[in-house]
């Protein structure tokens, strides 16, 4: 097992053609001696186009078997796209996001596995979790965030494992602000099980928006905790599930636990289909029910992406994969 990695030594030609916007790619593969035959393959897609992604990702050390610690250097460029490709392995990751950095964390798990990530966001960060590949059975993604200043977090799942479970914990420091946006599309026979927990320190704000386009089964739980000493907080939860199949199952559980009276908190929870008037309008322009559903589902995805700071990059990437939009 090597404990030093120099990205420049390894170049994986396979990656070059995958993403049309890339100009230079650094690929890295590592062998972990303790686990025979599996190997973890970290693809860093790096491009210099518009200075999007930085090429200099220093990896500090591999702590033990499956632990990776990334320290992203502060440079002019600030968007980093980390694609994690793991089969059968359970991984532990630690990431420190410097101020202003944007991290795209793409997950490709080929078999049953889990990933546990701890992220320290130093401030003004955007974090994107993408799950855009069809996986095998169960994938358990656990992420713990330490939130300083303003952080926006996006969990975008279009295709995923039979069972995909996200456990997301946010610890908000004093006066910090968090916006979390989830959007998942669940096919028939799939399960998405999400649990989002937000713990507030003094004067912190959070907003969690959770949307699903559901043809299978969704279980969503959002917990906001404001403890006794945490004055001046605000928290908002909005869960919106759109059901696209008669057999879809949706369990939606927003929870507010408020122990301080200096608070503004709200939550909304809804399950339904598309707005009838919108459906009728599209029908009246010639679209069948299924076509109208597709158009409206896409519009939700489009809307979601337009909120992000990397909208164009994401859309191009999705188009390249022939996914929605």
């Amino acid at each position, binding site marked *: 097992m090597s404990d030093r990695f120099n990205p420049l030594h390894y170049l994986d030609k396979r990656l070059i053609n995958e993403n049309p916007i890339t100009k230079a790619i650094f690929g890295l593969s590592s062998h972990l001696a303790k686990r025979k035959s599996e190997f973890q393959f970290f693809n860093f897609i790096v491009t210099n186009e518009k200075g999007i992604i930085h090429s200099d990702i220093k990896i500090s050390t591999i702590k033990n078997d499956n632990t990776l610690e990334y320290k992203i250097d502060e440079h002019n460029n600030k968007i980093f796209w980390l694609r994690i490709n793991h089969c059968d392995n359970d991984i532990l990751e630690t990431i420190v996001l410097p101020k202003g950095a944007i991290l795209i964390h793409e997950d490709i798990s080929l078999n049953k596995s889990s990933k546990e990530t701890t992220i320290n966001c130093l401030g003004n960060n955007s974090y994107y979790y993408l799950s855009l590949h069809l996986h095998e059975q169960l994938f358990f993604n656990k992420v713990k965030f330490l939130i300083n200043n303003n952080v926006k977090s996006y969990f975008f799942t279009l295709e995923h494992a039979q069972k995909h479970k996200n456990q997301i914990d946010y610890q908000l420091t004093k006066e910090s602000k968090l916006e979390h946006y989830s959007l998942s599309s669940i096919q028939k026979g799939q399960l998405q099980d999400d649990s989002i927990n937000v713990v507030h320190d003094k004067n912190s704000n959070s907003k969690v928006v959770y949307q699903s386009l559901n043809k299978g089964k969704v279980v969503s739980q959002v917990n906001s905790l404001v403890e006794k000493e945490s004055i001046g907080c605000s928290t908002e939860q909005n869960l919106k599930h759109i059901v696209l199949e008669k057999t879809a199952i949706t369990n939606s559980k927003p929870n507010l636990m*408020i122990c301080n009276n200096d608070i503004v908190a709200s939550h909304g*929870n809804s399950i339904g289909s598309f707005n009838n008037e919108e459906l009728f309008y599209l029908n009246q322009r010639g679209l069948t029910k299924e076509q109208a559903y597709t158009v409206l589902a896409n519009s939700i995805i489009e809307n979601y992406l337009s909120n992000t700071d990397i909208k164009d990059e994401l859309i191009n990437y999705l188009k390249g994969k022939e996914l929605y939009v």
Partner: protein
Amino acid sequence: MQNKQIIETLDTKYSLGFSENIDSETIPKGLNEDVIRLISNKKNEPEWLLNWRLEAFRHWLTMEEPNWASVNYPKIDYQDIFYYSVPKKIKNEAGEIDPELKAYFEKLGVPIGEQQVLAGNIAVDAVLDSQSVGTTFKEKLNKVGIIFCSFNEAVINHPELVKQYLGTVVSYKDNYFAALNSAVFSDGSFCFIPKGVRSPMELSTYFRINQANVGQFERTLIVAEEGSFVSYLEGCSASRRDENQLHAAVVEIIALDNSTVKYSTVQNWYPGDENGKGGVYNFVTKRADCRGYKSHVSWTQIETGSAITWKYPSVILRGDESVGEFYSVALTNHHQQADTGTKMIHLGKNTKSTIISKSISAGNSSGTYRGLVRVGSKADNARNFTQCDSLIFGNAQVHTHPYIETTNGSVTLEHEATTSKISDEHLFYLQQRGMSEEQAKNMLVNGFCKSVFQKLPGEFAVEAQKLLEINLEGSLG
């Protein structure tokens, strides 16, 4: 907003906390089969009902007390409760209500003699500790076929009806307190509205706990046949005691095709003093079964009392196009704890439910709202709208858990909830128009609860508003 000093006058504010030394017959404390047989015997119950009680009791013994609610209370010693206490003198030879009892209830503002009539006739069944002491307007109601009497009376005079419906909505196996209630239930009301009849007046039951350490286990059964309508009110209060008292009630409502039942409660059990001493434990199972096509049940409640409240009035929307509604204002102050909410279970097609819940938590109290809207797989086109809002003051805690579970895709379920303090902007505006801070706050709290107050029958709306003001006085800091 700064916390004001809470005025230490809660004791004097619960004006219904007086107790009277009413000569009562009481079975010694303790719970076992003998006590149950004795209770059943004293009420002249038929064999089948005694057996039902015993089955429930035996089942209760196998159950474990639930502890999932976010309320904390010291372990209840079920052997340390009187399960039966009945005033010795209820009626004289002429069938008139004993004057001492009449006076007692008058002090409470409950007219049990038909001479005194509240504005707008209301038929009243008054229950003191373990017994109904009188029901007004029985004959008048009888004329249109309505049966409104104490539960005990119904068992004796209309056993077939009771047998047909008792336990069909809440079986004794349902939960721990339902089992306990089924074993030792004291008295309650029975209402039967026959086909096509619209009740000419409101029916109400007033429950009063007077004796110390008496548990009140009321059982109410309301049956609305096809096309009928009834509006029912439940009122209650208890004398102020240092020990906690247990009130574990079961209310079952059955609504058949095209019938409507409106059930309103203004709950004012003794909430305990400002240090949390004493007060009633209010553990209630209330459930309505909308069995019929287009049947409609609505629960409206104003909860200001009891030390601990644990109740979820629910509606099972079985019949197609049935409608369930739940409107609630819950106030907790000092050391009160409340874990309440509602369940709407959609089973039939095109069913609709509405939930509007407002809670106000002050002092050191804790309020939890738990809502469940569940849509079954055959419940096509179910619709629900839920709004739960909370106001917090002082050191209170509020938890809200509005859950939705669906197994049918053709649904529209919406929920909104807000938790906040009173808006400073609104306060300023009202003060700028001449109101004191206290007045302004009361006005805002009132506005906050308005949508629920509007659902109460006339008189009660006024009483509810007053109750809220009294209970919140000095706590809106």
